[in-house]
């Protein structure tokens, strides 16, 4: 550098900004868990899942305070809290899942998301756009919450619950899908001396029977991707494959798909804004 010449401080600031990669955060505030993903336009640079509780706003704040981001988009049942508290846009979890899933699985596909309290089946085109979707009715039948209550009734953790799948008979039927009624059905089966293995299998079958018609309404051909917390349940996964007679794909982190999708949307709006600013 020549003597006597100094760059103005703003130049260094400009250089620093050039170097600093812009990042976008997506937060999926679900009924059972809150998921955060920070995305730099190429890959996920941060991810975290915490249990949701009574103090949702506080939990969101803790998650967001830990990270740096230039744009934020919220999805999930608690998205309105983020919209108001952080003045950021929101997107439905259906759109978020469609986009998040398309990051890992390009091409037209059907996305099945079984979360804490609802089930969604989404038909997505190769651009990540939603073509059609179906969602379960208002109650928690056949969702994560259903499995949680049933595991507790059988004195099992959710992980053990899914691993326990060597039933002696596969003909046992649980007729109720209502979480409350199914619980009493399970209790009376236990009282009759049914084994936990048989009951666990029957519970999974009853959920499958509820969800298959929903999938068939939306799915045509091609891949089916299973997301949401329930995708961690091996028995459910195996039964879906058996029923649909095809391989069902599971993303690397099935629970994070919605937050990932939201972060991609945030990044896209950031890039759009940048290119508008350049003009």
């Amino acid at each position, binding site marked *: 550098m020549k003597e006597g010449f100094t760059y103005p401080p703003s130049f260094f600031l400009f250089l620093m900004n050039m170097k600093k990669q812009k990042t976008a955060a997506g937060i999926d505030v679900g009924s059972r868990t809150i998921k955060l993903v920070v995305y730099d336009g190429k890959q996920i640079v941060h991810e975290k899942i915490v249990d949701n509780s009574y103090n949702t706003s506080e939990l969101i704040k803790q998650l967001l305070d830990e990270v740096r981001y230039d744009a934020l988009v919220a999805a999930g*049942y608690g998205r309105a809290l983020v919209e108001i508290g952080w003045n950021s846009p*929101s*997107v*439905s*979890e*259906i*759109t978020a899942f469609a986009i998040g899933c398309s990051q890992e699985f390009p091409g037209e596909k059907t996305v099945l998301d079984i979360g804490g309290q*609802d089930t969604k089946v989404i038909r997505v085109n190769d651009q990540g*756009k*939603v*073509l*059609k*979707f179906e*969602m379960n*009715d*208002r109650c928690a039948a056949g969702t994560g919450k259903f499995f949680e209550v049933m595991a507790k009734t059988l004195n099992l953790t959710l992980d053990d619950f899914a691993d326990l799948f060597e039933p002696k008979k596969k003909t046992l039927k649980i007729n109720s899908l209502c979480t409350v009624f199914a619980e009493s059905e399970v209790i009376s089966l236990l009282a009759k001396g049914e084994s936990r293995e048989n009951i666990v299998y029957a519970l999974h079958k009853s959920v499958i029977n509820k969800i298959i018609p929903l999938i068939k309404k939306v799915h045509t051909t091609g891949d089916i991707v299973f997301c949401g917390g329930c995708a961690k349940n091996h028995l459910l996964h195996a039964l879906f494959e058996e029923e649909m007679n095809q391989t069902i794909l599971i993303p690397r982190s099935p629970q994070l798909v919605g937050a990932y999708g939201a972060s991609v949307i945030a990044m896209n709006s950031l890039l759009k804004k940048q290119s508008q600013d350049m003009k």
Partner: protein
Amino acid sequence: MSQDWAPMWKELGLDLKAHDELLNVLGKFYNDIFMSQKDRPQGMQYFDFVMSEVHGLRIKELLDAKAQSRKVIATFCLYIPEEIALATNAVQVGLCGGAEMGFNIAEKYLPRNTCSLIKSFFGFSEAKICPYFEASDLVVGENTCDGKKKAYEIFKDLRNLYVMDMPNMKHEKGRELLKSEYIKYLQMMEKLTGKKITVESLKKGIHIANEKRKAIGRVMDLRKHNPTPISGKDALLINQVAFYDDPLRFTDSVNKIADECEKRVKNKIGVVSKETPRILVSGCPMAVPNWKVPHVIETNGAVIVGEESCVGMRNIRNLVSDKGNTVEQLVDNLVDRYFKIDCAIFTPNKDRLDHIVQMAKDLKADGVVHYSLQFCTPYNTESHLVENTLQKAKIPLLKIETDYSMEDMGQLNTRVQAFVEMIKK
């Protein structure tokens, strides 16, 4: 409220405490849902006023009419021709309830899994919170769906009720049945009011009802423009008030709004931006204060441009011809018009399917939201055919099945937001 109506309500026999609760809910709802809207047509102020006086001034008017020995007829359904009431100088008002009030009382008479619309009219009546029931001389029911048919059998012991029979197929025998029921009804109305219906009086009734339909039709037609000059919620309100208000004054006020909307369209002024996704709502009727689904749609970034519903196009579509020299010829004209109403109680009901597609195209809707009340078998079941028809026409559809409660607001918001994101260009 401009005046203390409590003495009037007390005299009518309302349960003042429960009625106050209803008015509080209604007032709060109205403020949140209607007054929060931006760029409403000026003319909507009239409807704000009507709604603020819906249990006050309007009831006073009904009582004044009765004092002049006019009769007040309360109905639930589009198939009861207002022309006949008008021909006897009677006042006809709608009774359908749109709120979850008095359901615990209604469930003393009806199964829990009865649709909200039926439970609501039972509840409003038996909880003594509806001055329209108390101000009416006669309640007129009709054998449309099974829920109503059976409910009327119970209701006839509670109120002065007349039930009209209804065909459920659109063949010649069906038409004959409707005609004979209209003649029976006309004769009953003559007896009740002590007034003979003449060609002249019936033509006058036909004229008043047609003018009302035409006025609403003007506003509804203007919504095909982009940007639309009026919100879906305000348009629904006009359709709802059509069942309560004095027909002449109402027609006049609606024509003023239509004039204003015409100017808006000319100057390209709308209630939303041009990019806003446009939605046609199709399905069950929405009675005051059932604004739940339209509010969800319009707060999720879309605008409603049409209502394929009883509280909407079904009520105003087709006029009654006034050509004829005998009362019977005019009754034939009434039957011609009313027999075309495409309610889901009819089988088959292909006209409705075609009409939904037609409306979606005419109004340039980006998608259709099919709304059916939980436990409403006719509309719920027909929604499958609606889905098939719209799929063929390549029009996106969101099916919603809900009731008057607020417990599914989270799910509804998610579904509607996703649908709006999906149809956005």
